[in-house]
C-alpha cells in the first residue's frame, strides 16, 4: 500500500502541468487533429485555426460575409481570372516579423503537395498550373520511389516547378497575384477558408524532413507545438496537452490586437457528453460546441418554453434596438422547467437520405431505386415535420432541397418534393410497381413483389436509428413495402457507402463556401464524394454551363435549374432537414458566439459580461416587461 501510494505520488508529479489562471473563455470541443493549417479537415481544427491564423480574408461572425483579413484590399481583372491582393503592411507573425506574400505562396504550395494529401487542395487547384504541378510532383515521387536519387535535389526541383508552373506570384512582399483557370465567382469566399492561411516559411523549413525512400516531405510533430509554432492570427499557442487542454493567448503582434475583447481562450476536450454538461453547470466551462447528451431534446423543449414565455418582451426590446446576445441577456431569467443556455443553430448543411442509383446492387440483383420514379415515390411519403417534432425533437428546419433555402443571396431554390401519398402511389405504379394481387405489397408486371428495402445508418448516435424507424413506418404504411434496418459502426458504414453497398443510406453535407456548387458538385458524375453513383449527363452539362458563365445572376439561374433537376425529378438524395449546431452557452454570461449558419467564430469578439453590464441589461428587460 505504501508502495502504491509512493507510485501514485510520483506519477501524479510526472503528469502535472504548470498551473495557470483560468482562461477568459473555456470551451468544450473535440480534440484538434492538427494545427498545420493546410492539413486541416475537421470542424474543431478549422475553429481553432480561425483563432490562430488569419487568411487573406476572414468571415464576419455577425454578418457572415467575407471581409479584409491579412489582405487589406484586392482587385479583380476584367476577365475575372486574375486577383491582386494587397497585404496589410502591419501584418505580423507572432514572433514579430512581417507576414510576406511569399509565406502565402509557401503555404499554397504545401496545400498542393500530394505528399500531404490535403482534403481541401481543391481550393488551390482552381489556380492556373496547380493541377500540372500536383501531377508533376506525383510523377516525380513515383519516379523517385522506383530509383531513388537525391531527395533534397527532388525537393529543390519541386520548389522550382511550383515557381514555374503555378500562377501565384508575389511581385513584392505585400502583393499577391493569383490567376485562376477560369473565373470563380466565390473566390473571395474561398479565401476565408482556414486551409488557405499562410505559414511562416522560415520556421516551417526548420521542421521539414524528407523520407529518403519515398522522397516525400513531412513536417516534424514538434513544429506545431508551443514555442515552435508561429502564427499570424489573433491568438498564439501557449500550451497544448494531448486530449487535455489547448490554451491560446492574445497575440500582441496581431494588427487588430486593440479590439480584442478577451486575453485567453482554452479548448477543453471533454469526451463524455454528460461530463461536459456537468462542467458547464459548475461554471468550469463557458461554451460547449456540440451538446451530444441523450436528453438534449428535453433541454431544447425547455428552451422553447422560455422562448414562448418571453416572446412579447422580446418584441418590445427589439423595437428599442436590442438584438442578438444582448436581447437574450436582457430578457427575464428562465424559471423552473425553462432554460436559455441551449442554442440550436441552423447550419449551412443538409441532412438527407440517399438512394443507390446504380442499375444493380452489389449482390447482382436489379436495383429498384435505379428508376427515378421509385425514388420520387419514396420521397413523397416522408412526413418531415413529424420527424423533427416527434423523433429528433430539436425542431430543425425541414427542407426539400439540397442547398439550404435562402442561404445564398440571389439563388432561387427549387420547390422539391413535399409529402403527397396519392402521388407517391401513382409514381410507384407508373414505375411498374403496383399491388396486383391485393396483398398490400406492390409487384412488378411479372408478379415479383417489391424487394425488401434496407436502410443503412451508423450507430454512433441514436438519432439515425430513430429516423430510420420513422421512415420504415412511413414507407410500410404508404407503399406496403418491406423495410429492414441495417445499423453499422461508423467505420463499416463509411466503407459500405464508398463501395456502394446499400439501397438507402443516411448522409449529410456541410457547405464549405457560400455558393450552391459546394452542394451541387456532390452529384456530379465521377466526383470523389458521389457515393450514390448518380450520373445524369444533362445535370453534368448544366454544371459545366454554369462554370463557363460570367454573369453572376445568370450563373445562379443555371445552378438553380440544375438543382431543380435533382430535387424535382431525379432525387438521388432525399433531403430531410437543415443540419444544426447544438451549443450550450449562456448569452447573459458569454457574449459574442456566432449564430451564423457557417458557424465560423471570431473568438476575439467574445467576452464575459461584467456584473454591471448584466444588471444594466436586465433593467432594460424589466422595463420592457412592464
Amino acid at each position, binding site marked *: 500500500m505504501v508502495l502504491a501510494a509512493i507510485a501514485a505520488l510520483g506519477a501524479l508529479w510526472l503528469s502535472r502541468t504548470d498551473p495557470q489562471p483560468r482562461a477568459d473563455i473555456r470551451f468544450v470541443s473535440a480534440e484538434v487533429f492538427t494545427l498545420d493549417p493546410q492539413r486541416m479537415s*475537421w470542424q474543431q481544427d478549422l475553429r481553432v485555426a480561425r483563432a490562430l491564423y488569419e487568411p487573406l480574408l476572414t468571415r464576419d461572425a455577425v454578418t457572415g460575409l467575407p471581409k479584409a483579413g491579412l489582405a487589406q484590399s484586392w482587385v479583380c481583372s476584367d476577365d475575372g481570372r486574375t486577383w491582386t491582393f494587397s497585404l496589410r503592411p502591419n501584418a505580423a507573425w507572432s514572433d514579430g516579423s512581417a507576414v510576406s506574400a511569399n509565406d502565402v505562396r509557401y503555404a499554397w504550395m504545401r496545400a498542393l503537395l500530394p505528399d500531404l*494529401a490535403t482534403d*481541401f*487542395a481543391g481550393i488551390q487547384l482552381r489556380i492556373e498550373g496547380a493541377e500540372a504541378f500536383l501531377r508533376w510532383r506525383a510523377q516525380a*515521387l513515383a519516379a523517385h520511389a522506383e530509383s531513388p536519387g537525391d531527395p533534397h535535389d527532388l525537393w529543390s526541383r519541386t520548389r522550382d516547378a511550383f515557381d514555374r508552373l503555378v500562377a501565384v506570384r508575389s511581385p513584392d512582399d505585400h502583393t499577391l497575384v493569383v490567376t485562376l483557370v477560369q473565373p470563380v465567382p466565390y473566390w473571395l469566399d474561398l479565401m476565408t477558408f482556414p486551409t488557405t492561411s499562410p505559414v511562416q516559411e522560415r520556421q516551417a523549413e526548420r521542421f521539414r524532413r524528407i523520407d529518403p525512400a519515398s522522397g516525400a516531405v513531412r513536417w516534424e510533430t514538434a513544429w506545431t507545438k508551443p514555442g515552435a509554432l508561429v502564427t499570424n492570427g489573433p491568438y498564439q499557442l501557449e500550451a497544448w496537452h*494531448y486530449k*487535455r487542454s489547448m490554451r491560446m493567448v492574445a497575440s500582441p503582434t496581431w494588427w487588430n490586437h486593440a479590439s480584442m475583447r478577451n486575453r485567453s481562450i482554452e479548448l477543453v476536450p*471533454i469526451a463524455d457528453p454528460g*461530463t461536459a454538461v456537468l462542467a458547464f453547470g459548475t461554471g468550469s466551462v463557458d461554451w460547449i460546441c456540440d451538446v451530444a447528451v441523450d436528453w438534449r431534446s428535453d433541454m431544447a423543449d425547455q428552451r422553447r418554453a422560455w422562448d414562448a414565455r418571453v416572446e412579447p418582451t422580446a418584441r418590445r426590446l427589439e423595437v428599442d434596438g436590442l438584438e442578438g446576445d444582448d436581447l437574450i441577456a436582457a430578457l427575464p431569467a428562465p424559471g423552473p422547467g425553462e432554460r436559455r443556455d441551449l442554442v440550436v443553430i441552423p447550419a449551412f448543411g443538409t441532412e438527407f437520405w440517399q438512394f443507390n442509383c446504380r442499375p444493380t446492387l452489389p449482390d447482382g440483383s436489379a436495383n429498384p431505386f435505379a428508376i427515378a420514379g421509385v425514388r420520387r415515390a419514396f420521397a413523397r411519403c416522408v412526413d418531415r415535420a413529424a420527424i423533427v417534432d416527434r423523433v429528433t425533437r430539436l425542431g430543425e428546419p425541414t427542407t426539400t432541397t439540397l442547398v439550404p433555402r435562402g442561404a445564398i443571396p440571389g439563388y432561387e431554390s427549387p420547390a422539391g418534393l413535399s409529402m403527397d401519398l396519392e402521388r407517391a402511389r401513382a409514381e410507384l405504379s407508373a414505375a411498374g410497381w403496383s399491388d396486383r394481387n391485393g396483398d398490400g405489397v406492390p409487384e412488378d408486371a411479372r408478379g415479383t413483389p417489391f424487394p425488401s428495402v434496407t436502410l443503412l445508418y451508423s450507430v454512433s448516435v441514436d438519432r439515425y436509428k430513430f429516423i430510420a424507424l420513422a421512415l420504415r413506418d412511413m414507407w410500410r404504411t404508404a407503399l406496403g413495402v418491406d423495410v429492414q434496418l441495417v445499423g453499422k459502426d461508423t467505420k463499416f458504414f463509411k466503407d459500405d457507402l464508398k463501395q456502394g453497398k446499400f439501397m438507402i443510406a443516411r448522409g449529410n453535407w456541410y457547405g464549405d463556401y457560400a455558393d450552391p456548387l459546394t452542394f451541387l458538385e456532390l452529384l456530379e458524375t465521377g466526383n*470523389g464524394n458521389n457515393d450514390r453513383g448518380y450520373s445524369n449527363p444533362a445535370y453534368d452539362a448544366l454544371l459545366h454551363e454554369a462554370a463557363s458563365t460570367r454573369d453572376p445572376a445568370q450563373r445562379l439561374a443555371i445552378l438553380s435549374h440544375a438543382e431543380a433537376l435533382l430535387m424535382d425529378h431525379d432525387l438521388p438524395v432525399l433531403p430531410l432537414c437543415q443540419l444544426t449546431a447544438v451549443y450550450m452557452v449562456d448569452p447573459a454570461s458569454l457574449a459574442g458566439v456566432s449564430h451564423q449558419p457557417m458557424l465560423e467564430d471570431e473568438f476575439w469578439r467574445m467576452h464575459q459580461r461584467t456584473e454591471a453590464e448584466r444588471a444594466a441589461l436586465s433593467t432594460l428587460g424589466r422595463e420592457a416587461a412592464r
Partner: protein
Amino acid sequence: MSIGSMILRRSVQLPLVLGAVFLVTFSLMWLVPGNPMESEGRRPPPEIAALFERSYAMEDPVSFGMQYLDRASGVAWLAGRHDRPFDLGPSLRHADWTVNEIIAAGLPVSMALGALAMVFALAIGLGAGIVAGLRPGSLGDAVGQGVSVIGISLPGFVVGSVLSAIFCAWLQWFPVATWDGWSSAVLPALALSLPFAAAIARLVRYGMLEDMRSDHVRTAMAKGRSRTGAAVHHALKNALLPVLSYLGPATAAAMTGSFVVEKVFAVPGIGRHFVEGVLGKDVTLVMGIVLCYSSLLVLLNLAVDLLYRVVDPRIEAG
C-alpha cells in the same frame, strides 16, 4: 530455482511474449475496416490517398509491421539504421503527435490514477474483508458483502456519473473534468478502485474464515490469544497470499487505464487514448500502447512473483 535465474528466464520470455502480442494485435488491427486518414466527409482523390499511404509505407502490411517492430524494439537504432531507440512512429490519426509523446503524456496520468486506486482498493478492501472475516454474519459483514456486490456489478460509468453528480456538481467538493493535482484524482480513483476493493474484500473474508477454523489458529487461541489477536497475527497473514497474487494483474489493469472512468472524468489517460485509437484505426498508436502495456504486465507479474517468495519462502518461483 534461484531468484537470479528466475529474472533471467523472464527477461528471455519478455521479447517472445511481446512478439506474439504484436503479431496478434497487428493482424487484428489491419483487418479492421476503415482508414485512419479518413476525415470529415471529404475524400482526397484515390491516387493521392495511395501516395499518402506509400509515404507511411502502408500499402504492404508485412513490410509496415516489420519496419515498425524494427524501430519500436530499438533494433534499428542498435544497427544504426535509425536515429533513436523505441520509436513508435507518428500517430496516424493525430498527425501532430508521435506515439511516444502520447504515451509519455498519458501513461503517468493513468499510473497515478491506477496507483491511487490501488491505495483506495487496499484500504477499503482490507478493512471490509477483516471486519467481515472477524465477525461473519454480523451487520458489518452484511454491509461489506452488499457493498462489494455493488462494487463488482456496477459499471464504472454509473459509479463515475453518480460520484461526480454528487461531489462535483452538488456539493462542489471536487473540480469537474480537470486533471491537476490530488483533488481532481480522488473521485476517478475511487470509482476505479471499487471493483478491486470488492474483490480484495471477498478474498480476505474467505481467507480469514477458512483460516480461523484451521488448527494453528485454534491452537493459538487455546494458548490464550484473543480472537482478534489470533486473527491478525496468524489468519491474516495466510489470507493475504491470494490478495498478493491478485494484486499483480489488478495493478497492471488499474495502471494501464480504464477507458470508462477516464472518459467520464475527462482524465487524459492511456486507457482513453487506446480505445479511441482502436475506434479510429490508429494502427501505430494502438500498437505502441499494446507493446507498452504488455511490457508492464510482464514486469509487474515478475515483481509479484518476487514478492511472493519474500512473503512465503516455501513457494518455488515457476
